[in-house]
């Protein structure tokens, strides 16, 4: 049962180590409820597809894992698809060659494979930081992609089905379901897994371990001097982050019942996952999840609207990056840019003209700067 505690004078509740004020608790409950009613909302509208939101949540979940590295250790990984793909391919291999039918066992296999893979890649790439680390993770990711593409046992470019046993599909609770029911049930499974994953990540971010990671992220040498086992801690964070990717990949494969290299292992997938974290707000816990849904949704809707949907998503993303530098969730927070601007507008509606004037001025300034740069590039400094 939740117990009441006092947080700086405001009453708060503590439950399972999660401490929230009344308002935060309301948001939390609403958010969880919303996740659970999405299938009903999706069934009302043609443009809203459950499978798209589901996929966004899965990639977003991988981004939540990546965020552990990004937010605290300040390491940028360009190879997170490696763990997503490892998880996905592990389920396919288990289903095809070991005949494993249970969704639970398939996911455990995905977790095990991703853990081993993250441990190995972590040891090999964490000797370096910054750009070299990013390039190494990219290289390992592409190596796995090449292996999946080249091995006919892994289906090559055609990929592998996850359709074990006589039922020709993975089993939930030992039972085969029709495609539409299976889609909804696996969605609820995803929601449960995500809630557990977010809870675990929250506990990690409330722990001394997180403080140690922050210290490492800020100044490695100093962290080593105060006696932190830097390499071991960063490696542990890397493995945890990889497990999140593996779970997401395993679920993705079980949901789609098919895995192909370009959807799971290609380096652009890593870029997507990294981008989701930044888009949603990498200084927040649920930001990457929201970023995942938004990005996948943009890509999907864009395809129906225009042939140049990549351009469309690019423009939307540029607006987000320039307008909301802390990401979607980061900007919506109290004290974030959106709230600040809204309260200004309420106090003084004429502030709009100031904003537009500022916007025009900053555009003019940027154009002038670009022209100067162009002149220097073309004619040199004179």
């Amino acid at each position, binding site marked *: 049962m939740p117990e009441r505690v006092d947080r700086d004078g405001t009453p708060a509740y503590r439950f399972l180590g999660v401490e929230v004020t009344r308002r935060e608790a309301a948001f939390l409950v609403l958010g969880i409820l919303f996740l659970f009613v999405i299938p009903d909302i999706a069934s009302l509208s043609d443009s809203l597809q459950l499978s798209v939101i589901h996929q966004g949540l899965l990639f977003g979940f991988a981004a939540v894992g990546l965020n552990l590295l990004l937010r605290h250790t300040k390491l940028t990984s360009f190879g997170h698809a490696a763990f997503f793909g490892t998880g996905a391919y592990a389920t396919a291999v288990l289903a095809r060659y070991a005949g494993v039918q249970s969704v639970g066992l398939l996911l455990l296999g995905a977790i095990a494979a991703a853990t081993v893979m993250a441990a190995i890649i972590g040891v090999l790439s964490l000797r370096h930081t910054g750009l070299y680390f990013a390039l190494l993770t990219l290289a390992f990711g592409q190596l796995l992609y090449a292996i999946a593409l080249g091995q006919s046992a892994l289906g090559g*470019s055609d990929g592998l089905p996850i359709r074990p046993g006589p039922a020709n599909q993975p089993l939930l609770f030992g039972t085969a379901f029709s*495609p539409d029911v299976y889609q909804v049930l696996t969605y609820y499974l995803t929601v449960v897994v995500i809630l557990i994953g977010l809870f675990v990540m929250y506990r990690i971010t409330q722990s001394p371990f997180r403080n140690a990671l922050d210290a490492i992220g800020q100044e490695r040498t100093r962290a080593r001097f105060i006696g932190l086992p830097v390499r071991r801690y960063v490696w542990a964070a890397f493995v945890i982050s990889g497990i999140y990717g593996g779970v997401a990949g395993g679920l993705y494969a079980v949901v789609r019942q098919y895995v192909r290299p370009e959807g799971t292992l290609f380096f652009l997938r890593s870029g997507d996952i990294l981008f989701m974290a930044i888009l949603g707000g990498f200084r927040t816990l649920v930001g990457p999840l929201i970023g995942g849904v938004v990005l996948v949704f943009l890509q999907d809707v864009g395809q129906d609207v225009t042939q140049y949907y990549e351009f469309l998503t690019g423009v939307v993303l540029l607006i987000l990056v320039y307008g909301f530098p802390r990401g979607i969730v980061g900007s919506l927070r109290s004290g974030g840019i959106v709230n600040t601007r809204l309260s200004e507008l309420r106090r003084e509606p004429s502030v709009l003209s100031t904003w537009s004037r500022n916007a025009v001025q900053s555009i003019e300034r940027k154009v002038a700067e670009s022209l100067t740069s162009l002149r220097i590039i073309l004619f040199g400094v004179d």
Partner: protein
Amino acid sequence: MEQTTTDHDTGGIGRRQLLSAVGSSAVAAALAGCSTLLSDGETADQSEQSGGEISDEPIQAGLLTFTRGAPGVLGIQAQRGAELAVQRINEAGGIGGQREIELDVVNEGSNPLDSYNQFIEEGKEVTFGPISSGTHSQIAPEVEKNEVINVSTDGTVTTLYEETVPDPTYSFRFQNYDIMEVVTMAREAVERIGADNISTVAGVNPGYSFGEDEMRVFTQAIQRLTDAEIVYEGFPELGASDMANHITSINNEEPDVTFSSLWGGDVTTFVRQANANDMFENTTVFGTTLYSAAGDVPGDALAGTDIYSGSRNYYWGLPAPGNWQPGRELFDAATQQEGVTVPTAHYMSGYGAVTAWATAVEKAIDLLGTYPTQEQIAQVLEGHGFFTPAGYHNIAEDHQGASNSFAGQMVYDDDLGAARLEDVNTYAATETAPPPGVTGSDWLDSWSA
């Protein structure tokens, strides 16, 4: 266009014989390319139709195909073919003289499974497509689960009905599949050069599953037909800009036959660079899908080459029953459409998939007097035979379509402004496909040397 019809230019076919031959309906006749043989404005005998039993609600159909990028070279052909078939059905009064078809086309891009599921959610009564083998392996089991018939245009992977969906009910494939087109080219090589003259073979195939499968089957087939040894295998990436190392290797080995399953823009790259390096002085190229680049490959690149290409199951102007050429008529109709320079076998993929389904539904309506269920249409499709301008096709009990395949020398035609095949050979399905229930590799293994 006013056209008077006499027995002379129909190869001796009268209207009555024609209608009974193609399945006694206006739709079947229109799809067979015989609409010109029906006198103006006359459709099938409506009194035989139990029109009252059938709603006039349009049939919602979906087509999954590549509409963009490199695979769009094949995908747009399939789309235009399907669109023309739908147009002809609707002009002939719709299915059962009642129901027109509305075709919804979706790009088989990054998430084909989602696009397919959306078709099902929208309540499509039939789906067509896809183009890629990987996509087909992915959606065929879904088709079986959703119990809505899919007649695939391509996705010609050999293992589909051998391993992926070994006992299909609702999934059908119209187009000749990989093993058929490869065996066609192995037979074509023997036909043109002679088995005794083939002792060395090389391969240049696209570097993904399709290309690897094609080369493996060709090796198996050619080594059954000849004593050839494989001297070189190259697998350039899709869209590779430089094929020099493969061409150099072939020039060094001088193989009697070079097998290639390159398609689309890769054909132009390969042929141009091979020609520049005098590769055709050292080898003859035999390819399954080279002709898919017909509208793309320029005349100067083809000049002085020695290339034989298959054209799966369609080559305009063939077969020519008498002097009447439905294939040529289809060619003219196709080139009026946007994005079709020359209709290739992939055009027929789309046209034939729609035709297979539409003629089967018409047959079912004839039998039942009402509009059939998915299961009934599926039963009629098993063993269903029908005409298109490419000739006579049959969907076997194992759900695999069987058609004659065509192969000839690929030359540039100045009048056409595109490549065409010269001196075309026709191969019956019995020569190129295993009998139903026998896997491709078992069948090849069983050939007597």
